[in-house]
Each structure stands twice: as C-alpha cells, then as structure tokens.
C-alpha cells in the first residue's frame, strides 16, 4: 500500500518502469482482481462508492458518469473509451508528468474503465507536442499486448481491449470532450450539441466515455487496495490524492501528489517554497487559466472541490499559477484573454467576436489608450460570455480570470487608464 498511488513509481532520474517493474510494484492488480470474479457492475459500484471525481477540470463524479452508458443485452455492442490527454489549459502540467513518468498506470486505469463500460476499443487522444509521453506510451502499450493485458480474452476474462494512441494536430478546443470526438473522427473540432451526451452517442455515434488521464490513473489503486484505503488518503471532504502544481515566481515551482484537503498554504509555502526573495504574493489562479483569482486571504482554505468553490473559484486542474506583486495583473489577465481569443473555435458569435474585442481592449490598456468606456465593455462581457450564452465552456472559462481580475485589481485597471500607461516593468 502507498499514500501516493499516482506518483509512487515516478522517478525523474530514470526512465519509467517497464512492465516487469510495474507488475512488481503491484501493477495490473486491478485486472487480476477483475479476473478473480468482479462483474462490470461490481467495479462500477466500487468506483461510485470511492467518491472519485473527474480530474479533467469539471470534477464530475466518475462512477456516475459511467453509469449513463447503456448496459445489458439491448445496448449497442460497440462502445468506446477515450482518454483525454490533450492537456493544454494554461498553467497545467500534471498529465504530462503522469504519462512520461508511469505510462503503465494509465493503461492499467484504462483497463478498469473499459471493462466497466464494456468497451473493446480505446483511444488515447494525446497532445501532439507531447513527444516524450508518446514514446513512453507506445512502448508501454506494446509491452501490455505482449504480456496479455491488451488484446483478446484478457487474463481469461473473455474481455477484449485494443488501444490506439492518437496524436492530435493541435488547438485547445480539442480538450473539450465533444470537440475531441470530432477531432478523432477527422473533422473540424467544433464542440457538439448536448444532448445527446457522449455516454449515449459519442464517437461515431456509439456510447463513449471520455476521461482525463489523472482520473484514470486513480483507478488501479482503488481496485487493488479498496475503497477504505482510498478514502483514508484524503485530509478533507473529497477523496483520494490529487496532482497539485505551482508555477510562477515561487522558489521551487513543481508538481506534487498530495491528499485532497491539503491547505493551500502548505502547497504554496511548503512544497513550492513560497515567493522568491523580494516578491510578495498578490493573487493566484488555483487550477489553470479558466479559474477565478484567489487572494492571500484564501491561503488557509483547503484544496477541496467545495471549499475552493465557496471562495468563488474552482479547483479545476489543481495547478496553481502565482501572481507576484511586481508583475502587472492587467497584463496577466490580458495574456489569458489573448489565449482565449486565439483558441476560440469560431462556432458561436459571443465567443468568436467577443473575445477578440476583449483582447483588443487589453492591448489598448497596455499601449496607454484605454478609457472608462473600455472598462464598461469588459464588465459587460463577463455576462455576454458567461455560462449559458455560448455553445461550450471555453468562453465562460475566460470570464473567470476576467471577472475576478476586474474585481480584485480594480485599482490597477484604473491606473492604466488615468496614467495612460502600464507602470509595471515587463
């Protein structure tokens, strides 16, 4: 047993474990447990009671999501599992580590998920730039076939699974699960209308589960060591451990697996070593570029989904971006707006036209041409781009740093207008 089920095999001073090494570290025990007589419904119940929530950003309960897949005799024969390995959320660097560091853990988790929904085909949708992860996964998939963990009649269960590693051709929107399915089908990656949800009609119209890399990496431990062990890992309300990262001007930026419920302060001041000398913490985005800013006053909150939610933000990817007192907050929000404007898929008007407008206004602030009317337009866009106004969650994601930035850094915005310049050095 371990208290770091996601990273215990990861040692950056060597390559990832090969299949023999992985097996020796209790690897693929999940499939052996299944072979000893767990039905898909048994596994579904285990995952449901574990309380595992999706680590891709939305935090949706994994077991519940799986339960929407049609089961039983009348259900479609062809079903798919798709791994969302498209990590591109600004400031997020956790799935890369998991895939480069322990690729067999992901395959192990995929077996559990695919068996539960009875999918015989799984695609890993991997970001094209992740060459090292691609190589690690290719090797691991090959080893898993050779050892009989993939292919036909796995461990005598009668269950078959094939894995195809798909490398993506780019664009942030491909991380949105329905856009991802379009990209896999070789189409332009605009999101799809929901319903129907992918669980019912997804890849090529078949029932499909899309799960994040880290979500799937939680499964082998749950099956091997049980729900009690899993729930005991956490220090807070939510269960298990999570990958947490800190980037920005801290002394020791990095990514660590920590129990859910760890205080923010412990992550930032302990693991990340606090701010670099001479700098003060101004604010932070707790879980990537689509989350609301939080302030030093929030440091004693715990890293739990609900608790971060109560502070008006989201735990999301768990990778924190730190803003120091000598970096321009308006510039930081502006950088994010450039990103979102650039990555809009262009399908719906508020996002396609609104985000470039917002971005343009930020360029104006930087150039010293901003005015009060611009500020009002930005405030209006928090609503125009908000939830329910656009076809997918990309634009609402942009309003998180925009809205919270306008609120927390109001003085800085004013100063850019009154002084007609940016007074920070950058």
């Amino acid at each position, binding site marked *: 047993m371990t208290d770091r089920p996601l990273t215990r095999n990861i040692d950056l001073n060597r390559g990832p474990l090969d299949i023999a090494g992985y097996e020796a570290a209790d690897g693929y025990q999940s499939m052996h447990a299944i072979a000893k007589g767990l039905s898909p419904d048994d596994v579904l119940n285990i995952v449901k009671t574990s309380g595992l929530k999706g680590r891709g950003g939305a935090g949706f309960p994994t077991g519940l999501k799986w339960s929407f897949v049609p089961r039983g005799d009348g259900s479609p024969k062809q079903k798919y599992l798709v791994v969302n390995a498209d990590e591109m959320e600004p400031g997020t660097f956790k799935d890369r580590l998991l895939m480069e560091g322990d690729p067999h853990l992901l395959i192990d988790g995929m077996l559990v998920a695919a068996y539960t929904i009875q999918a015989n085909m799984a695609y890993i949708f991997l970001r094209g730039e992740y060459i090292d992860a691609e190589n690690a996964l290719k090797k691991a998939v090959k080893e898993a076939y050779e050892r009989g963990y993939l292919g036909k009649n796995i461990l005598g269960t009668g269950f078959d699974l094939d894995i195809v590693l798909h490398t993506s051709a780019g664009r942030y929107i491909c991380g949105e699960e329905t856009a991802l399915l379009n990209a896999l089908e070789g189409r332009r990656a605009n999101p799809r209308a929901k319903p129907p949800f992918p669980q019912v009609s997804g890849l090529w119209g078949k029932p499909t589960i899309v799960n994040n890399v880290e979500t799937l990496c939680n499964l082998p431990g749950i099956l091997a060591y049980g729900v009690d062990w899993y729930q005991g890992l956490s220090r807070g309300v939510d269960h298990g451990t999570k990958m947490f990262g800190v980037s920005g001007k801290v002394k020791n*930026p990095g990514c660590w697996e920590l129990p859910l419920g760890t205080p923010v302060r412990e992550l930032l001041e302990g693991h990340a070593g606090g701010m670099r000398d001479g700098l003060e913490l101004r604010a932070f985005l707790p879980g990537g*570029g689509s989350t609301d800013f939080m302030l030093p006053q929030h440091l004693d909150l715990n890293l739990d989904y609900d608790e971060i939610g109560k502070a008006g933000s989201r735990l999301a990817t768990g990778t924190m971006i730190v803003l120091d007192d000598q970096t321009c907050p308006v510039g930081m929000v502006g*950088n994010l707006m450039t990103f979102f404007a650039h990555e809009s898929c262009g399908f719906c008007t508020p996002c396609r036209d609104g985000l470039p407008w917002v971005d343009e206004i930020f360029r104006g602030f930087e150039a010293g041409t901003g005015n009060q009317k611009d500020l009002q337009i930005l405030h209006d866009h928090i609503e125009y781009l908000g939830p329910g106004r656009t076809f997918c969650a990309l634009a609402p994601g942009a309003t998180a740093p925009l809205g919270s930035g306008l609120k927390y850094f109001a003085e800085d915005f004013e100063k850019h207008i009154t002084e007609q310049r940016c007074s920070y050095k*950058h």
Partner: protein
Amino acid sequence: MSVQMSSDSSMIASTSTRARKLNAAEIAEIEHEMTLYPDKQAVGLEALKIVQKHQGWVSDESLLGIAKYLDLPASDLEGVATFFNLVYRQPVGRNVILFCNSVTCWIMGCDDLRRHITHSLGIDFGQTTEDGEFTLIPVPCLGDCDKAPVMMVGEKMQRKLTRDSIDELVVEVRIQPKARDDV
C-alpha cells in the same frame, strides 16, 4: 530579413488542380492508419500528419493527393487542415520553434525572449528565417510551466530559457541540420 508568409497563399488550394502522387512510404503509413479507424474521414487527418512528417508541410498538391487517394472531397480536407495549428499549409523552416506564450511563460519573461529571437534571427511569429532554418510559431502552454519559459525546437523541449541559452541553441542547430525528404 524575413520571408513573410503571404496571407493569400491559402487561396491556391482552390486553383491548384495537380495532385501529387503520394510516395510509397506515405502510402504504407496511411494504409496502417486505415486499420486503426473505422472510416476514411478519420484517416484523412492522420494522412495530413503523415504527409507533413515526410514533406515538412502540406502543399496544395499534397492535399489534393491525399483527397484523391482516400476519395475524400478536397474542400472537406482543406477545412480540416486549416483548423488544426500543427498542420502547416505553408512551407516552414527545417526547425519549427513552438514558442510558449501562455500565462506562466509570460510571467517568467517570454515577451523579452520573443523580442530577442526577433532581434537575433530576424523573425517574429509566423515567419521563417531567410536560410530556411527556423520558423517561429506561438503555441499554447506546453505543460512544463514549472520550468518556464519554455519552447520546443523540432521534437525537443527547451526549458528554463534565457537569452543566452537561446543563442547557444541556435548555433547548435545551425551546425547540425535536420534531414528531411525534401531537403
């Protein structure tokens, strides 16, 4: 000191009629993809990537060649090709620099490094050096934010960048040119 990619070159697709015959290596790889996906539409995007791997970019002639080989409408394939930023529909240099300009790299000073590259190589985003060695392209967060600022040169990550480390890298790459089918 740079070759600006002209915005109207994307028009050529509709006027070019000559399909390039795909070579044996490209065809073998495309045929392999056919076994992994249930239809040709999905293979189309894979074929664009395969051709780019061999040719460096996807010319109009290549695109038409793929469309013909897979029996897909060229206009559909063009729609797909232009959606994805890692499919290059214009020639690129031997080494593509994917330069992260997302938020953490911005905090860590990537704007200054961009200016440095523009100054020393004479190229900004979307441009290729005159000797055809480098093309500079912005890319969203490369997922290495704890080692920011970062960029990729070809298939390799370059981390904790400074002006000096970029200068050294440029020299290194220029000494060892990368082999490719068409050069």
